[in-house]
């Protein structure tokens, strides 16, 4: 990542009169060196990479938790985990996968790629962006701190009251869980603010709204969803926290509260959360299909409108998680209709991809294989989703393994397969080397087989009435064979992930050099070196079509940007006409320090509420320092 700019191959720009600019940009945008310099980073690529790597560490940890559960359930009356630990493990698995893997890894991909794709040098608020990562990291450390002390949260990842209330979850485990959620909210909202403004205001000249790469569109829509979804979980977590520690009565029916209020508030966030994970994956698929077939995606406008429609509908589905709570039938009917409607925009996208692929000769490399894996698994997940949207079916299958099967097909099929494809696709850009093809194909094949072997039998287990979240079952239920199959499948998945890790390590050491654009892809991130220099582009590109790198005339360039200051080119939101230049701050330790005071305040508040206030007050001088140093760099 710290490749000095000088090594950039000269062929990225015609002629070398740019050597002077290049040298000065490298000096202006340089990072702080030394190990302490790590605390100062504000580059979107560094922060994005940190999100991705940290998220993958959490993915591995949550995978180990999943393996532990499959080990426990492989045989009836297993003794590997006791019920108490089992409850902690499934809660940790869900919390980690949703809050610490799936969302942050998408945030990281967006942070790394979107500024490159739209042709800018950094996100608009680089220091704030650094705070987002520190918050995320602290949340993760806190989560595993409680787990290691055997005080992990154990009320499931959606923490229904009254189980998560004081009466049934005494002790600090749930208090910690609430703060953990707060950390992830802050981090997601910060990334959302950064990337919304990046996409609207910092696009390269010429990149009007109808020329934004589909991945950047997907991220933009996702970030807007975050802005509207996270407040619901802020409210939910805040209320649960105050019910637990201040004695409020939001969820206490005896004093006018209501347990279902939690479910409404949580799922008003929780359902859009699924789309926050899923939409970026759709963007990745478009990028991969376009690069694999060397075609523009068919039906660009329909694709964008489908993304927007999915986001809107995604906010009208939350009650389908609550069909078993006895809501009015009229309401249930509405949410059934909305849940089925969501299949329409998704269908539009799938047909557009099929149309793109039709008659093409795609390159059968790992990214494309993962996309094919997506088509198959996500289709099944989508179909079981339509089944569950029907109230009578849902009432039968609620809280059974059928639901577990469904959402793993949606989340792994819909997000993890495209994500792996995306990693194979963009790893060359990020690290400068190709991932191995053969290992990649094995990685895909084993993941695909292992995944289906693990989760397909769970549909059947659900039909047979096996409830989710039970730590064991008796041998006479007829569930033994299917459970064993699922556990074997989990082992195969573990091998697949191990192959992926081996591939990454090998490729980092001796992978083939990628060059600027190994896939001959269309969008701007491939117009710079791999890995990109810290300032991204020597000259901000000027684009004149949706596929700037496939233009016969080549890429245009912005001139007259001073290189002695950290300047961004700001453009108008609709047509990306240049508006003005704006300076952004450079490396600073302030984001780290202020995250520490605020974060320790939040963590302290688990034990004594005033710590939150102390943390906030201690942050004020740091905020002043931040403001002052931002003004005179």
């Amino acid at each position: 990542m710290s490749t000095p700019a000088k090594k950039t191959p000269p062929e990225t720009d015609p002629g070398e009169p740019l050597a002077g600019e290049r040298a000065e940009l490298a000096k202006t945008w340089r990072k702080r060196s030394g190990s302490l310099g790590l605390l100062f980073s504000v580059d979107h690529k560094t922060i994005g990479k940190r999100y991705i790597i940290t998220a993958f560490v959490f993915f591995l940890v949550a995978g180990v938790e999943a393996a532990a559960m499959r080990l426990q359930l492989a045989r009836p009356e297993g003794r590997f985990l006791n019920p108490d630990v089992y409850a902690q493990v499934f809660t940790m698995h869900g919390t980690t996968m949703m809050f610490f893997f799936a969302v942050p890894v998408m945030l990281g991909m967006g942070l790394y790629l979107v500024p490159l794709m739209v042709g800018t040098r950094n996100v608009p608020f680089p220091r704030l962006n650094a705070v987002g990562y520190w918050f995320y990291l602290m949340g993760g450390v806190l989560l595993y701190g409680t787990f290691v002390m055997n005080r992990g949260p154990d009320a499931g990842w959606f923490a229904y009251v009254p189980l998560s209330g004081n009466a049934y979850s005494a002790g600090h485990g749930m208090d910690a869980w609430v703060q953990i959620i707060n950390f992830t909210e802050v981090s997601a909202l910060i990334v959302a603010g950064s990337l919304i403004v990046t996409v609207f205001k910092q696009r390269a000249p010429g990149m009007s709204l109808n020329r934004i790469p589909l991945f950047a569109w997907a991220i933009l829509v996702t970030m807007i969803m975050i802005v509207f979804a996270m407040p619901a979980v802020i409210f939910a977590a805040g209320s649960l926290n105050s019910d637990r520690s201040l004695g409020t009565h939001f969820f206490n029916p005896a004093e006018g509260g209501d347990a279902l209020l939690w479910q409404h508030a949580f799922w008003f966030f929780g359902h859009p959360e699924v789309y926050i994970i899923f939409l970026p994956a759709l963007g990745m698929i478009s990028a991969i299909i376009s690069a694999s077939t060397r075609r523009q995606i068919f039906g660009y406008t329909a694709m964008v409108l489908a993304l927007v429609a999915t986001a809107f509908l995604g906010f009208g589905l939350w009650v389908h998680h609550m069909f078993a709570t006895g809501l009015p039938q009229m309401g249930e009917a509405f949410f059934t209709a909305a849940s089925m409607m969501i299949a329409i925009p998704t269908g539009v996208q799938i047909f557009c991809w099929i149309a793109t692929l039709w008659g093409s000769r795609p390159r059968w490399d790992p990214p494309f294989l993962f996309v094919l894996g997506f088509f198959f698994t996500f289709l099944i997940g989508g179909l079981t989703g339509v089944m569950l949207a029907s109230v009578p079916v849902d009432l039968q299958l609620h809280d059974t393994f059928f639901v577990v099967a469904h959402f793993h097909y949606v989340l792994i099929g819909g997000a993890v397969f495209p994500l792996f494809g995306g990693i194979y696709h963009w790893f060359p850009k990020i690290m400068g080397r190709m991932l191995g093809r053969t290992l990649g194909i094995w990685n895909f094949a084993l993941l695909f087989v292992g995944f289906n072997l693990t989760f397909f039998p769970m549909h059947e287990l659900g039909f047979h009435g096996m409830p989710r979240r039970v730590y064991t079952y008796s041998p006479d239920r007829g569930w033994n064979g299917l459970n064993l199959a699922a556990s074997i499948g989990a082992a195969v998945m573990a091998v697949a992930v191990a192959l992926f890790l081996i591939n990454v390590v090998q490729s980092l050491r001796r992978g083939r050099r990628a060059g600027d654009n190994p896939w001959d892809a269309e969008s701007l991130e491939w117009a710079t070196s791999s890995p990109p220099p810290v300032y991204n582009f020597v000259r901000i590109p000027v684009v004149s079509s949706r596929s700037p790198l496939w233009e016969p005339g080549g890429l245009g360039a912005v001139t007259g940007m001073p290189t002695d200051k950290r300047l961004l080119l700001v453009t108008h939101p609709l047509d990306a006409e240049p508006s003005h230049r704006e300076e952004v701050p450079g490396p600073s330790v302030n984001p780290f320090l202020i995250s520490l005071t605020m974060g320790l305040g939040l963590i302290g508040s688990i034990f004594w509420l005033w710590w939150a206030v102390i943390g906030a007050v201690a942050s004020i001088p740091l905020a002043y320092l931040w403001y002052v140093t931002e003004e005179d760099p």
Partner: protein
Amino acid sequence: MSAVRELDVSNLPDAVLDSRSLVWWGTIVMTVVETMVFAISVGGYFYLRNLASAWPPPRIGPPALTAATVNLGILLVSVIPAVLLDRAGKKRDARKIKIYLAANLVLGTAFLVLRYWEFKALHCMWNQSAYASIQWTILGLHTTNLLTSLAETAIVLIYVMTKPIEDHQFLDARLDGVFWYFIVLTWLPLYVVVFLVPRLG
């Protein structure tokens, strides 16, 4: 170089003081997030009200209006220095932004002090019932935003009093005004929800 189209931006300004700037957009995103937090809380309020047999519970009774209404007056008056601050920032008037930042801080602090009596006017503590909990939450959330805004005003004020003022500070002064508009605009419906709706019975 002939094949490559070039676009010269050397005569563009290095700073703008209006809605084109990145910081402006960031501020707007933040206010949207906060507005959504208020909206969800108000949703929770009406959800609980719908379930309640009486709102507020008879033993608590509706909140008193005096402190809240006086404070509403102060808040409406405080819009004047905010507008003037906004305009002074736009005109790059260093002297005036100091005056109006100070005025904003004074009126905001007065509003904050009176807020103490607004909490008292609720006639309940947060732990007495779900009604009390949501009332305290909404009032508390607005107070948190208020404190943030006052801290921001104080930081900008200290800076402009002690250091040379550049375009950045003029923009920040304007944004301080914009954030104050947000404080005022959100309070108008929240005042109705917290102090008037409970009187509907």
